């Protein structure tokens, strides 16, 4: 089956469901989830319990990704929103929840093996006695932010949302680099040539822009 863009698959899935063609809708949804497998898998690997902290232990990656993948498939039974951005946000929430759940499993395991979390406290180490609890707290905050993002995505599709977010950026320099990154999908080298700036500048503007865009997409819904 050749590649088809997400928004095409999502639209067709809704059309097929509306016509009662559930078998076709299931196949179309499967195609959509397959398209996004890498997003799921790589997001699991990049997941952190809080900014800059540790992520899931490597042996848990496969199980967490597998669970998240099944949960995204399951979403297909009831997914009502036609916007592809809504799908991305729901997917991010699934991955986040699956990773958090695996984090809780680790915490339980630590409690069972060590008697208590406090007993493992190392005042000179990076890990503190409240790491897991703080991680869970941060995770809940993050999940809430994603909920808010989903609400906004009810009104706008992903491309428009990202374009809108880019348009909100205060820095013209970041805005033009992100348009080339997300909308035109130009490689860094080509962007540098078009803008007449160095590669180092492109790298820096991309990082700052990606973080600013994410912040805009979260904060604008608060």
């Amino acid at each position, binding site marked *: 089956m050749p590649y088809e863009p997400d928004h095409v698959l999502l639209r067709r899935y809704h059309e097929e469901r509306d016509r009662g063609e559930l078998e076709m809708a299931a196949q179309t949804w499967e195609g959509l989830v*397959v398209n996004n497998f890498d997003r799921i898998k790589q997001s699991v690997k990049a997941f952190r319990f809080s900014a800059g902290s540790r992520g899931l232990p490597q042996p848990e990656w496969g199980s967490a990704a597998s669970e998240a993948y099944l949960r995204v498939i399951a979403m297909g039974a*009831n997914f009502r929103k036609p916007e592809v951005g809504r799908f991305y946000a729901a997917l991010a929430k699934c991955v986040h929840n699956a990773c958090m759940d695996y984090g809780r499993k680790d915490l339980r395991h630590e409690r069972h093996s060590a008697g208590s979390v406090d007993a493992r406290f190392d005042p000179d180490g990076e890990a503190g006695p409240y790491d897991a609890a703080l991680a869970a707290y941060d995770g809940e905050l993050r999940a809430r932010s994603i909920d808010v993002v989903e609400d906004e995505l009810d009104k706008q599709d992903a491309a428009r949302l990202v374009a809108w977010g880019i348009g909100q950026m205060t820095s013209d320099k970041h805005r033009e680099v992100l348009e080339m990154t997300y909308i035109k999908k130009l*490689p860094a080298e080509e962007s540098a040539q078009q803008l007449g700036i160095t590669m180092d500048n492109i790298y*820096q503007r*991309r990082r700052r822009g990606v*973080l600013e865009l994410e912040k805009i997409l979260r904060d604008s819904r608060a």
Partner: protein
Amino acid sequence: VTLERDQILSEFIDAWNAGERPDVDDYLARAPEADRGELAGELLAFLTFAPTPAYSDEALQAIRHEPIVADAHGVAAERGVVLPALLTGLRERMSMSTSEVAGELVRMLRLPSSGEAKTASYLDRLEQGKLEPARVSRRVFEALAMLFRVPRDELEGAADMGGWAAVSQAMVSPAPVFRADKEAAADVSRHLEVLADALATPGGERRDEVDELFLGGR
């Protein structure tokens, strides 16, 4: 922020947009140890709303052969539903046996403790794909969702996928079609009467609360 970190993020973005299927782990490994946590957050920020690349046929084929993808779709096709695989995964992640899950459900649903073994049996059938999820009460899904800390919608969604899989299997193996001859009605009528009598006969044992929860539907 090191220039190296900026460059690594940027190279990941280019590889992603080009459909080259970059691996987060490889890129994190290139960053200095102290930068990895921050870089991971930046990669995740990009991944959340990154446009899905236009994958080549080869890349899509490779994705379909990934063990997680092949297993998920294989299990769904083989066992008819997504729910069994998901339930099994969730239970194992919680390091709980089916009996322990049953014990928790009995407590949460305020069932008599004598119903624990029967609840475990139903749960086992549900995990094996031998119990139609549509027959299971919403209260059971609510309790399982609470126990496993997942949204109830996701569990019910996994259960609802069964209808799709059932349709799919029916299409793969179409039922044979027979044309009745003239005597068919007379031949079949006595069997139908026996069947009707059997269906109308009350069962010897009444359903209890556990049966209702697992067989009574939503």
